């Protein structure tokens, strides 16, 4: 076996040897005291558990033979011609279950198992993290409960059905805005109640310390593989830019992380602008022209959509995975340091992006990932001919077909 993974060096593995709870001013751990023993449990054990050779080889083996890593880096020839610069697609849509979420779900589930936890809970927006979690729980024989907002249940019904087939209990959350944020609230309430035997498998690079670093360490494989594949084609070179959609920020930080200290590489995150900033119906935390405001939500201090009293505002996006009020704390720091840039595209632009990639390359991206494509289109004048840009296709579009179909039917009327 001389797969790419075998040649990976130490940096491939999740590393928790010197975790800090803050990224500059952002992050922290704002949770009820009742959860502190569980959080301390993770913080105290994670380095030893994940450094263990048995853990490493099990995770690596599963990533390779179960998830199908490394995922390809595909040259998008037709799209490149259309936009006027080289576009390389990192194909997380080809990972088992159809999105990058499985990288993190697998890593954390193996961790939970070694911590002696038998019951896993998770939240889901698009349903992709829920499906990934239900999948690894089926594989590892763990009990699984998934919290999902009622609005998301309605627009991602096939994923609900998938989770249930995989043996998970899906709990529909009917309070608040009935989307991802409320699913997380309910998951936290479950965790507070069953803290002794339950592991909370958070799906994005947010929430209380240590989750932002845990999720990033299990997702950084995206960027590491992309860089390696890129450099096997262009030895010694770096891409001009790397681009990803940003919900909580896990696929983006997974792609960005290995490039942070390559200053020539533009790090570009695309947020969901919904019906437009002016409409108030959007999920833009950083890219907005108004001053972003930081606050605490669900354990974390970061940029947050909120009113002047500190009440969290309702969000909107056609992509359920981007429909969230807070951006992860590492993105907050990258934004503040001006190391990464954040832009936004509207629902309609994302739909056009989806159609564009589908038509030119025969790849139907998830609505979330379609934001990254639409971002490229929006920013195309900032690239020169000969530039090489890596775009993360964080997931495949199958889950969105029903919603897009319904929408086009409504439009035709």
């Amino acid at each position, binding site marked *: 076996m001389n797969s790419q993974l075998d040649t990976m060096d130490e940096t491939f593995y999740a590393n928790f040897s010197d975790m800090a709870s803050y990224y500059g001013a952002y992050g922290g751990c704002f949770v*009820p*005291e009742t959860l502190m*023993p569980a959080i301390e449990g993770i913080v105290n054990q994670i380095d030893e558990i994940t450094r263990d050779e048995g853990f490493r080889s099990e995770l690596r083996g599963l990533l390779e033979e179960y998830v199908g890593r490394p995922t390809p880096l595909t040259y998008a020839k037709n799209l490149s011609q259309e936009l006027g610069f080289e576009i390389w697609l990192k194909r997380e849509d080809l990972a088992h279950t159809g999105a990058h979420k499985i990288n993190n779900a697998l890593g954390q589930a193996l961790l939970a198992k070694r911590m002696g936890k038998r019951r896993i809970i998770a939240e889901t927006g698009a349903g992709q993290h829920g499906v990934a979690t239900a999948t690894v729980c089926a594989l590892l024989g763990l009990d699984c409960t998934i919290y999902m907002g009622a609005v998301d249940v309605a627009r991602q019904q096939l994923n609900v059905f998938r989770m249930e087939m995989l043996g998970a209990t899906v709990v529909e959350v009917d309070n608040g805005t009935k989307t991802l944020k409320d699913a997380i*609230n309910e998951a936290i*309430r479950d965790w507070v109640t069953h803290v002794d035997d339950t592991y909370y498998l958070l799906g994005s690079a947010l929430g209380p310390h240590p989750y932002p670093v845990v999720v990033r360490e299990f997702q950084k494989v995206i960027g590491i593989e992309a860089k390696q594949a890129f450099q096997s084609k262009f030895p010694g070179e770096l891409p001009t830019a790397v681009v990803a959609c940003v919900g909580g920020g896990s696929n983006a930080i997974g792609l960005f992380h290995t490039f942070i200290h390559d200053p020539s590489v533009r790090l570009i995150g695309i947020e969901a602008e919904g019906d437009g900033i002016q409409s108030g119906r959007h999920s833009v935390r950083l890219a907005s022209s108004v001053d972003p405001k930081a606050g*605490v939500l669900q354990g974390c201090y970061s940029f947050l959509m*909120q009113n002047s009293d*500190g009440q969290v505002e309702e969000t909107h996006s056609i992509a359920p995975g981007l429909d969230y009020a807070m951006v992860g704390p590492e993105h907050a720091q990258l934004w503040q340091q001006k190391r990464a840039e954040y832009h936004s595209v509207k629902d309609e632009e994302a739909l056009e992006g989806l159609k564009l990639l589908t038509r030119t390359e025969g790849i139907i991206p998830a609505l979330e990932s379609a934001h990254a494509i639409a971002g490229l289109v929006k920013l195309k004048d900032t690239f020169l001919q000969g530039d090489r840009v890596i775009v993360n296709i964080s997931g495949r579009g199958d889950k969105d077909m029903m919603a897009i179909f319904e929408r086009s039917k409504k439009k035709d009327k």
Partner: protein
Amino acid sequence: MKNQFTNKLDKKFIDAKARNRAALMPFLTMGYPSQQLSLPLLETLSENGADIIEVGIPYSDPVADGPVIQASSQISLENGTTPEKVFDILAAYAEKKHSATLVIMTYYNILLQQGLENFVRQCRDVGVTGIVVPDLPLEESKMLKGLLDEYQVHLIHFVPPNISEQRLEKIAKQASGFIYLISVTGVTGKRKQLPVNLGPLCSKIREYTQTPIALGFGIGSAEQVSQAAQEVDGVIIGSALIEELKEPQSAIDNAAIFMREVSHYE
């Protein structure tokens, strides 16, 4: 060593102890069931046996609360309740020199967006004697604690039943006002039974601190108050009271009846 001060909150526990009673500590979401009723409800609780009233400033994402208090917060927000309006109500309450002292319960983002010092100053100005922030664990509380010490308002720390010895020791060292003992792991809400290990848990806490212990999360009846009063110095009653306040027409009467009932525990 911590900044030592005493305020009316400490006095309430001393008085209750002198009467050989546990301090009665009802919880009230401000702006629920309506903003107009908040002041008369506070007065009713005070007149009918409350020693300390925990006043909740509603927050959109109350992760430590069960369905009853969540719903009351949501309705209060729909009623247009803001921190500013809550402080107006508390100022009106303070003017009338009622017996029960007030402790604020709210989530950290509400304090942050008001500005920590501004928030703390307003607390002091309206006679609030303590602050409870359920999503602020010990590690994140240094900044707020410093300000509260300066303004002589207590920061109330939680002790959950699953706490480690080490952590208990650290929290006990910081404790002031009272220790908020959570009866079972979980969110706020009525429960059928009190935890069996309440006695040992209290003894353990008292090995480290003299600070009064108040039990909360799950207490709903005079019988449970009476049971708890054998072990702790104060009893916090939240969801069970809030449930009685659904109908604006009957809220005041129900609050009075409820308060009298629990205050006459055996």
